[in-house]
């Protein structure tokens, strides 16, 4: 029995390391400093795919940062509503709703966003559209983790603070934020990793293949690492493009892992 179990488990245990190693192995030929600092910025055209992916990196990070910037206050207000104003029934309903929203596939949000933001509101294919869609996608995750972060603060502390005559605002600033900053940060980091790895919803709503180094305004399109990989992966005949695709994949993976592993570390640090 044990032998059979171990045999089944071996692929599952070995595959993660194999995947990561394979990505970096394939990325080796193109992973060098010119990938980031090279002056030859990718331009449109079948055979002239350049080296530098710096615009893509900044585009991805911009999208992520703006999405978090939009989602964070809203998630905070949902979490505070859950903590202060909601009755038991409301809480249950709210959690169910959040769970449902999290269940909807990102591509569906992308499709709706294409209609509402790009066509109806005439924002066009832009940084703003992409970050609003990403913000909606990460909102359930972020509010869930904020709600749990606040729920873990001992009830007595809040009661004591309230009975001392502190206003709710003061309770939040003086008691809740200091007590739960690591949990909040964990949730935020996880949401950032999520926003950075979503590709499908921004493919037709926020990004173009190339030609943008730094967006002029929030209404101009950006380039992003995720969609860059997608476009390059299909350039079957061009070996240089495939190398760049693997290198972009390795860069994206590093960025995402940076955020998600930091979140994992914080969670462990918090429980011990």
């Amino acid at each position, binding site marked *: 029995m044990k032998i059979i179990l171990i045999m089944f488990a071996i692929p599952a*245990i070995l595959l993660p390391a194999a995947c990561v190693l394979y990505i970096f192995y394939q990325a080796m030929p193109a992973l060098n400093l010119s990938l980031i600092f090279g002056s030859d910025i990718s331009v449109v055209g079948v055979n002239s795919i350049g080296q530098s992916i710096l615009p893509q990196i900044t585009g991805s990070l911009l999208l992520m940062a703006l999405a978090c910037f939009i989602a964070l206050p809203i998630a905070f207000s949902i979490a505070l509503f859950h903590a202060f104003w909601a009755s038991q029934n409301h809480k249950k309903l709210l959690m169910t709703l959040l769970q449902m929203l999290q269940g909807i596939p990102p591509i569906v949000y992308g499709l709706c966003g294409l209609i509402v933001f790009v066509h109806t509101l005439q924002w066009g294919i832009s940084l703003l559209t992409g970050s609003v869609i990403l913000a909606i996608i990460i909102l359930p995750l972020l509010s869930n983790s904020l709600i749990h972060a606040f729920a873990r603060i001992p009830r007595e502390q809040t009661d004591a603070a309230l009975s001392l005559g502190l206003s709710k605002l003061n309770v939040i600033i003086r008691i809740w934020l200091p007590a739960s900053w690591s949990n909040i940060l964990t949730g935020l980091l996880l949401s950032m990793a999520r926003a950075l*790895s979503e590709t499908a919803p921004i493919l037709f709503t926020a990004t173009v293949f190339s030609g943008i180094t730094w967006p002029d305004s929030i209404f101009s399109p950006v380039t992003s690492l995720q969609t860059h990989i997608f476009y390059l992966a299909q350039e079957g005949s061009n070996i240089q493009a495939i190398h760049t695709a693997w290198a972009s994949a390795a860069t994206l993976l590093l960025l995402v892992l940076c955020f998600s592993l930091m979140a994992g570390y914080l969670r462990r640090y918090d429980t011990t």
Partner: protein
Amino acid sequence: MLMLRPSMLASFVWLGCLTAAFSIAVLLWFLWDNAWLFFQQFGIQTLWLDEWYPYENLYGFLPAITGTAWALLIALLIAIPCGLAAAIVSSEIVSSTWQAWIRLSMEVLAGIPSVVYGLIGLWLLLPLLQSQLNLLTGHSLLAAGLILSLMILPTIMLMAQDALQGVAPEQREAAKLLGLNWNQQLLRILLPQAWPGIRSGILLAVGRGLGETMAVMLVVGSLDRMPQPFYNILEPAQTLTSRIGREMGEAAFGSLHFSALMACGLILAIVAVFFSFSAQKMRPST
């Protein structure tokens, strides 16, 4: 507890909640409205018609639905045994150092973006399949299923491991006192006790697998045709998500084609919400 006069905090909270509710309601309403237009025109029977040619106004959903079902089924057939076995091995057999390492590696696997999986599928899996099975290109439902199984493995494994470790120590002690050997302990005590958690992990994985777009889109081949015969998983096919992803860019806004894509999106959303909802309902109350 209720605030009598509106303070800064209260107005901030209400503003935030209303913004969230309003924007999400608008998005979902547009989804519903467009899909409704489509179903009004073509009727519900498009769900089991098998021809999809947008330029001739033929919209049959059956090929994509079959494709989605096959890809998910293959993924689950691979990921459930492997994930469950890995969970049992890491929580019951190996030492806690190893356990931490396995858990970390699963978190890494869960963190790999789906487009990177697509890249791996396109440039590692497809050539392999092509040479091993003598296929034309390798684009197939089998490839989609294999990539999907890799993507849902962490969900199943991590949830199963949590469920196994949540079994009360008294239960294990009682099992040992009764003289049950390791196999009996596992099959009679641990797995039945952990089953609700494992089940909701599987349901969550189904929901995630349904909605996965980029990786599937790159390897499935995007050919709108019923598999011939219906269990042929070695030919290019189409799933609901890959259809949306492929045709979203080319469908003109406001056209029937676009409404048809919205209908795909609505079906996906309903099924995915159903799965995540049942995953939540069946989760053991802790």
